[in-house]
């Protein structure tokens, strides 16, 4: 709770109102007549342009928080504010990359990535759309797979296609639920690098769920550590690594190791308690 109040103080001191705000937001699910508390009443302020990672064991309510920010789920009690407004329905200001990739199986990679630009709300001239799609495909390393359908792609490729599809319309806020789980480590670093430069360049606000502490430290301004069910915030860590960060080298710096150790100390009790990571 201490960290909580400091976090809010920081947001207040900067003079900028929070971009996203959880106010005593809680979520209880009914499973076969039983109430399961997924998220204990939680306060959290996320600043504009901030890159924030949510880490913690499975079932700690990380995805629940994303779903509430996206407006796909209403908190059982409490509120979620976006730009000071309560989120009551699908939040069109966010781009949400869910754990399941939801690529449309009848569309090729190219057409899946393109879909947002076909919508009236992001109407884009054809030539420009072609151009941006091509750039995106190159950015996520799917060149040569433009005409494949999702079923013909590997799990990692699908994740990358889903990321490209979300990034292409440049939402002001990006919600990502374990986007790089299925990638091998080299490719993951490349993707982290791309994601960092894109989000920094476009000054996006990012809320990022991950199991990988290294990934969280590499990218984030702050890391929110959640504890197992019912999920609650255990601590919030400021990541004091200078930007821009070299995702390929930052993990070999002493500051990184120190950060990693502190996080691990925070998490290991929960993990050892027998939840799967």
């Amino acid at each position, binding site marked *: 709770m201490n960290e909580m109040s400091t976090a809010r103080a920081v947001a207040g001191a900067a003079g900028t109102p929070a971009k996203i705000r959880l106010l005593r937001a809680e979520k209880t699910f009914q499973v076969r007549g039983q109430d399961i508390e997924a998220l204990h009443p939680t306060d959290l302020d996320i600043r504009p342009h901030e890159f924030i990672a949510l880490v913690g064991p499975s079932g700690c309510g990380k995805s629940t928080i994303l779903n509430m920010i996206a407006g796909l789920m209403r908190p059982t009690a409490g509120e979620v504010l976006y730009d000071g407004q309560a989120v009551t329905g699908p939040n069109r200001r966010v781009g949400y990359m*869910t754990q399941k990739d*939801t690529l449309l199986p009848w569309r090729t990679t190219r057409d899946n990535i393109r879909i947002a630009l076909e919508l009236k709300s992001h109407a884009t001239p054809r030539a420009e759309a072609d151009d941006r799609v091509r750039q995106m495909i190159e950015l996520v390393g799917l060149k040569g797979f433009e005409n494949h359908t999702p079923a013909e792609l590997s799990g990692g490729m699908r994740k990358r296609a889903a990321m490209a599809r979300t990034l292409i319309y440049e939402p002001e806020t990006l919600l990502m639920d374990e986007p790089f789980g299925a990638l091998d480590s080299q490719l993951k670093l490349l993707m982290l690098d791309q994601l960092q430069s894109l989000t920094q360049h476009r000054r996006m606000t990012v809320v990022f769920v991950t199991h990988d502490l290294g990934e969280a430290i590499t990218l984030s301004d702050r890391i929110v550590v959640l504890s197992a069910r019912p999920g609650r915030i255990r601590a919030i860590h400021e990541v004091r690594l200078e930007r821009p960060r070299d995702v390929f080298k930052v993990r070999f710096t002493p500051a990184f190791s120190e950060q990693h150790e502190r996080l691990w100390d925070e998490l290991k009790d929960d993990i050892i308690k027998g939840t799967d990571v």
Partner: protein
Amino acid sequence: MAEGQRTRPADASRFGRDNILIWQVALVAGLLAAWEFFGRFSGGDQVSSPSRIINRIVIWLGGELYPHLFTTLGELSCGMAIGCSLGALVGLVLGRMPIVSIILRPIIVGLYSVPLVTLAPLFIMFFGLGLLPKIVLVSIVTFFLLFFNTFTGAQQVDEDYLRTLDLMGASKFEQFRKVVAPATAVWIVGGIKIALPYALVATITGELLATRSGLGFLISRAAERFDMTSLYAVLLILMALGLLLSETALRLEHRFLRWREAAE
């Protein structure tokens, strides 16, 4: 054929594909020869014979067949076009309107429980002896088949796809066009495939009852005159037509649903 090879590839390959073909040809040739033999030497008119039937078809192909063939095909395609498009459209819309579909459900199920071809006399009374009663009959038969298939498909659209599009800022109409319609296409094409043979049955049934043209008319005229050769000839033509239609349906399916084959 193709079906059998797919389900039991081991058996088929052990026997050899060429051997299978030889046996099939031999079997059909044997049956035809027996029929021909029987037809020639028994002298009975009911039996007719393959050579006489082929002869009759060749004569018809000289001109007489075409108006009848076109009548039947015209009724079939008009009826299919109307019935399938309306069925798919209503199925798509109702499939996405759970409350309305619950209200309408008993009415639709009730209507569909009537064996539809029995409506033929009714339509003939309403619409006379021309093409119209057959077109209406085919439309109704195919409408229901398409409706039920499409309806099921539209209900099973993955909500996660819709949510994804919703967050991207897609309007309800855009979600419908980009997700619901293509996701349901599998079911629509499947429905058309099922509907084709039923449509043929409905057309011929309508023509058998009262008409002045069409393949069904050729059948009833032949039957009235005890002209077995003509009767068999029409049946042969119908068989060919049926095969042609199902082949067309397969091609259609392959063309529109290539992504699905990849998924499987």
